[in-house]
């Protein structure tokens, strides 16, 4: 019994020794082969023979060449570890066989000591990797229209308030944020209201806030005959106050609404859009048209245009300028809040969103013509398009640069804006 046991242990020992020798040996064998590239070329499952592949080192010296065998295999020994560039000679490919991605004809690969690296040159029908420029452009145009409509809606109030009272409202961005944040509170935080209801509530509150600022603060100050600059400072103060109070309550994080957060995209040809974004675009367009019709047809709308054109003349012909201004503040704030809810829905809600948007709104109103509602619409659309289309070629982090660059360019070429009148710029 004891003999048998010892025999078994001897066999086991020998087995371990042989096995370890084998493993060690194979490892050594790999070391001995040194650094190399290797691979197998296949097209539709069949090996491809007679294709030349060459390798150059970092200095550009050719260090090896190989031609694939009948089994499609190739192997190139390398002089040592380092970075090499392997190139497949596409002229030697059989007729009708091509690289799946033409940009991967040369591969740059780093080899560490003792390693053989497999390289894959994928052959097959060329498939586009990601969208091409045309598709990207189509998508960027769509996004541009989407953001442009939102910017336009936010900026109408800014432009009309300027047109009526000559005030640049630095707090207009905070009305956008207020709408978005209130809707978030109604939707995702306390009440859990459905987003449409939450949005409507937020817009009503923000409109009341805008009207309240005009009624309880700016109107009394106007009676004190403060200069335009002092009013600008008041709006800067309001903007600092509102922004940081919202930061206090909302916090510095980005939040999303509960409804319509994740949706499958609809595709129309090169355009892909979620039902949410499509709805937002349609609603924005309808609202903008409604504003235009209102300004053209409604009594108050006509009064707004009259005051914007010439406040003294309007007042002397019996228009209650104070009431018109109050209406524009409330309606402009409500439109800004609608823009905020839309923007928060498309992107996310955060405390600085309106302030970031403010510069784009400035660009939009100046581009379109400071003080005109239609100018803000045209300018907003253009600014949205420019920012988004720029991302096709430029890094998205600098897309606002293009919008602001367009603004500076517009001031050089046509300072009165696209729809402004020359005499307005003094």
């Amino acid at each position: 019994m004891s003999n048998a046991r010892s025999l078994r242990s001897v066999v086991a020992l020998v087995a371990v020794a042989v096995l370890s020798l084998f493993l060690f040996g194979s490892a050594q064998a790999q070391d001995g082969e040194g650094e190399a590239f290797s691979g197998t070329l296949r097209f539709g499952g069949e090996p491809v023979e007679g294709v030349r592949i060459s390798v150059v080192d970092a200095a550009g010296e050719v260090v090896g060449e190989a031609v694939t065998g009948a089994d499609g295999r190739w192997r190139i020994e390398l002089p040592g570890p380092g970075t090499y560039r392997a190139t497949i000679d596409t002229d030697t490919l059989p007729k009708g066989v091509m690289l799946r991605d033409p940009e991967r004809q040369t591969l740059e690969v780093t080899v560490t000591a003792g390693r053989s690296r497999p390289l894959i040159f994928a052959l097959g029908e060329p498939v586009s990797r990601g969208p091409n420029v045309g598709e990207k452009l189509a998508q960027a145009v769509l996004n541009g229209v989407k953001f442009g409509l939102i910017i336009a809606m936010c900026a109408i109030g800014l432009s009309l308030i300027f047109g009526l009272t000559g005030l640049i409202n630095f707090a207009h961005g905070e009305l956008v944020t207020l709408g978005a944040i209130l809707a978030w509170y109604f939707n995702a935080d306390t009440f859990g209201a459905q987003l449409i209801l939450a949005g409507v509530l937020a817009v009503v509150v923000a409109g009341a806030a805008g009207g309240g600022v005009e009624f309880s603060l700016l109107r009394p100050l106007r009676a004190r005959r403060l200069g335009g600059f002092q009013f600008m400072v008041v709006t800067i103060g309001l903007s600092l106050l509102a922004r940081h109070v919202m930061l206090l309550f909302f916090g510095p994080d980005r939040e999303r609404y509960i409804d319509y957060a994740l949706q499958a995209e609809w595709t129309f040809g090169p355009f892909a859009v979620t039902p949410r974004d499509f709805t937002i675009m349609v609603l924005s367009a309808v609202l903008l048209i409604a504003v235009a019709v209102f300004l053209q047809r409604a009594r108050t709308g006509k009064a707004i245009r009259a005051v914007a054109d010439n406040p003294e003349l309007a007042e002397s012909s019996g228009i209650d300028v104070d009431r018109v201004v109050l209406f524009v503040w409330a309606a402009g704030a409500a439109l800004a809040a609608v823009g905020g809810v839309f923007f928060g829905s498309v992107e996310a809600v955060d405390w600085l969103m309106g302030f970031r948007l403010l510069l784009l709104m400035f660009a939009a109103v100046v581009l379109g013509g400071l003080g005109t509602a239609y100018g803000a619409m045209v300018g907003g659309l253009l600014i949205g398009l420019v920012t988004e289309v720029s991302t096709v070629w430029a890094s998205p982090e600098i897309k606002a640069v293009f919008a602001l660059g367009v603004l500076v360019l517009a001031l050089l070429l046509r300072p009165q804006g696209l729809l402004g009148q020359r005499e307005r710029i003094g």
Partner: protein
Amino acid sequence: MEFDVIFGNAARAGLGPQAAIFALAAIGLNLHFGYAGLLNFGQVGFMMLGAYGTAIMVATWGGSLWLGIPFGLGLCVAFALALGIPTLRLRSDYFAITTIAAAEILRLLIRSSPATDITGGPFGLQAIANSFFDLNFLPDGRFGWGTFSYSSNQLWVMIVAWILVVLCSALVLALIRSPWGRVVRAIREDEDAVLSLGKNTVAYKLQALVIGGVIGGLAGVIDALQQSGVGSENFEPQVTFFAWAALILGGLATTVGPVVGAVLFWFLREGVESFIRELSEQGWLPDILADFLDGAEGAISIALMGVGLVALMALRPQGIFGRRRDLHLGT
């Protein structure tokens, strides 16, 4: 409640390097708006160029700091010309919008990844002010009492910065009393009248923009020196608003207004923040309120600053030293 701690913190901020930096920025703005009627909302752009010009010369190109400072200020001159030549013919509100936009364009470009090799992108640039602190002749250690104290290097920055504040104030005063200053102030009052006297008003405004911009650039240089580095997050549009707040608080179109305004601005801001910190640490408040205040002092002090600006405009729009008749400037 430790009022000596709060007062010490407030006094340290009120006399510290930040106050001197904002005083310089506000002196530049005062020349722009208070005297020349130029509504510049992009002062932070000048500060950024002064700071980044200096830092890039030292940290990126390995040049000397004494070459970097004139380089940064030279960039400010270029920026003023690039900004002014196209826009100074326009009405002041257009100028305001263009300047705020131009400063933000600069900031976005500086922090973008393509610019990282030169500007450090989002990481900024560091270790630029060694040759400035080598000149520090003050002994090591802390100077002052309690929380009102500065390190040797801080004190060195302060000495240089406040000397610059005095020099720039004197320069602006001398300019304003010169024939040049009378023309510039006349442009502010009635540009058409000055035009009809055959003066090239755009050239005068451009000169005022360049000088005020270079003074703003100096503020940026001091900022880069005191931190021994630059970062794009220090140059957000808000900085311009704070410089305006300091100027308005002190009083437009006065010599001491921007300086006293900047000191008071930082004294009040740090005083409020320190007060809130103390308040939340005292344990007098209900937990829910203490939790709310904890870490919120920055936002609260800026929100209160907003209230202060509105109140100032409602109650004393000319600021501390300003004159009421100067209220209808520029716009």
